[in-house]
């Protein structure tokens, strides 16, 4: 068996997801959207803050989902892009006095460039090797942020405190609620753009690469370009999420962006269902709320309890939220028949 044949017969790293299955139906989307718009009107500020973080992590999880579920590349370095986005926003707001909303596209562009450049050397790697290379990026990032050269800008180990924006035009909204709706608007825009991206020619190219690189290049897809492009897009969205995170938390410090965050995002993607974009919000809920539940069960063994819960999820629903959604859909169809 030749080397080429070996690659061809090798099972793809990520299971192929047909592109129609990547999104939700119209009806369901509207229900979710209505819930996201209405719930904050009835809950405390603290819950609104948690929902803001839910959306922000969902964005970051979705960015990873485009990379892994879309183009079939692994990354354990998303925390590095998240950190770059967060610091870009924080530095522009605090040192340059820029409006918070303007810092987000800049954070996205900076991270897109960063991700695109990182994608170049990463082209030579695939599967676990790529995961390891990105892992190195994630471990290096907190130390880079502490470097003396950048200390004037980054605040070094002490980090930077960010001012939380008030609602504009004298709207009668609390800071938390305004930031939530702002985040929601940004998230929806990015979600719609991502769905369209995956349905477009580029999206088909991503998926062709994911399913079979050799076949994709035979069909005329520029494999190198689209692989780095996927990295860039993923990093860019993660950067915007990072910028929003910095504004919501009002603080950036190297310790906030460790490898722990990258692993959490990866976890969120798997729990939400690889390649299923709406699952990102479920995955994000998992990484925010399950540690709290685990802590409620046992403080000393919170890590172990979290492990058990994670194990149960992976064991019972290996395809994550997507599987649950499919089962629910089938049940609904059955009920309709009866």
């Amino acid at each position, binding site marked *: 068996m030749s080397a080429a044949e070996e690659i061809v017969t090798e099972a793809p790293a990520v299971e192929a997801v047909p592109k129609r299955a990547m999104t939700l139906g119209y009806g369901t989307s509207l229900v979710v959207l209505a819930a996201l718009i209405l719930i904050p009107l009835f809950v*405390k500020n603290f819950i609104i803050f948690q929902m803001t973080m839910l959306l922000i992590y969902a964005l970051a999880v979705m960015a990873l989902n485009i990379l892994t579920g879309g183009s079939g590349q692994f990354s354990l370095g998303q925390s590095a892009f998240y950190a770059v986005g967060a610091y870009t926003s924080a530095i522009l707001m605090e040192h340059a006095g820029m409006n918070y909303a303007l810092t987000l596209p800049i954070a996205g562009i900076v991270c897109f460039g960063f991700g695109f450049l990182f994608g170049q050397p990463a082209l030579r790697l695939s599967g676990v090797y790529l995961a390891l290379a990105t892992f190195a990026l994630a471990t290096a990032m907190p130390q880079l942020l502490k470097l003396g050269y950048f200390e004037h800008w980054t605040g070094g180990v002490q980090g930077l405190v960010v001012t939380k924006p008030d609602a504009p035009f004298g709207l009668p909204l609390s800071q938390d609620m305004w930031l939530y709706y702002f985040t929601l608007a940004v998230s929806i825009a990015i979600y719609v753009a991502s769905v369209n991206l995956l349905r477009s020619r580029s999206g088909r190219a991503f998926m062709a690469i994911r399913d079979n690189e050799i076949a994709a290049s035979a069909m005329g897809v520029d494999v190198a370009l689209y692989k780095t492009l996927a990295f860039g897009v993923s990093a860019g969205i993660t950067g915007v999420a990072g910028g929003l995170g910095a504004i919501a938390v009002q*603080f950036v*410090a190297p310790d906030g962006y460790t490898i*722990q965050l990258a692993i959490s995002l990866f976890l969120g993607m798997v729990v939400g269902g690889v390649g299923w974009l709406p699952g990102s919000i479920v995955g994000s809920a998992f990484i925010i709320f399950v540690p709290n539940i685990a*802590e409620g069960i046992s403080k000393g063994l919170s890590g172990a309890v979290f492990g058990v819960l994670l194990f149960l999820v992976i064991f019972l629903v290996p395809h994550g939220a997507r599987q649950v959604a499919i089962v629910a859909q089938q049940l609904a169809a059955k009920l309709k028949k009866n």
Partner: protein
Amino acid sequence: MLSTVRIAAIFAAITAVAATSTAAFAQKKYDTGASDTEIKVGNIMPYSGPASAYGVIGKTEEAYFKMINDQGGINGRKVNFVSYDDAYSPPKAVEQVRKLVESDEVLVVFNPLGTPSNTAIQKYLNSKKIPQLFVATGATKWNDPKNFPWTIGWQPSYQSEAQIYAKWLMKEKPDAKIAILYQNDDFGKDYLKGTKDGFGAKASSSIIMEESYEVSEPSIDGHIVKIKAANPDVLLIYTTPKFGAQTIKKTAELGWKPLQIITNVSISVGSVMQPAGFDNAQGVLSAAYAKDGSDPQWASDPGMKKWNAFLDKYMPGVDKTDNGVVYGYGAAQTLAKVLEMCGDDLTRANVMKQAASLKDFAPDTMLPGVKINTSATDFAPIAQLQMQRFKGQKWELFGEIISGDIPSE
């Protein structure tokens, strides 16, 4: 006209009711989180994550308040100690503190651990006027009552401790060539700054080498060999416990005998000196403010006897050589004292006022002579340290108690 009279009458009636009610309840005043039966205290600790070794502090505090409640509480009120895990991550710290304040509705946030986590929550708590009491970090910036009137420190700051070493060296060994080994983070850099400030103009001529290491490095033997090559006669060890033990051991293995001064963070007999080897640790200097739980010289000390009895009853099986157990006990006792001083006026403003009015308070675990003093302009509760030298299997205190107060920046 009639309506005006009526309004005036109603107004007068309301004023009268209000006046009598304030008179009747003048004794008891409460903010959210306090009542006739309960005082709710919030806390965040890294029970998981890279700094999870400090989680024992939170557990000790929880056990301490359980003991207080078993003894009848504080002025008849039980302390409800709510502690959450922040995993040493600033975003998580913000989430958990907001949960404490907005969902659990605590009266105060007490002893949150870590410089990054505390920085992340400081602005929020100060804008909400919620006391951020006795933060568990040695950074200098917590003593800033002017800009952050709702935040107060507890332990001596790293910088003031480093200044004490610098001043001692200038007096005892004025011509010493000094090398500094420090951890490359806020903790190590605070010590570095304090040392340089302490030496003042002499800093550049006295300090011949500054070597830093990352907390993620498995071993720092290479750094020690490098420092030895520069041949200094004093080695300042600004490290966390694991690296402190490694440094003392490695210098002995190299047959090198500089004068070594180790930070207060790494003075545990059980977890630093013993692993480093008692023979190797002879003559090492440091400064302390609290007693060491594993040091036999305190076996008959009344304060430490109470501490031992508490551990045997409420935390059986805990590792007594762990400095966190001593720390948590002392911090919890300080809070209990403040809440007791508040009497029936359990408003957040009064808690802060009482926390800033501690006079010569000495928790059981403090060294004899070390006392907690605060005022409206002094938010650094413990500011005193005493030099000590390791001899045999224990620390021997020498010299007098030195006050290392440094003004806020």
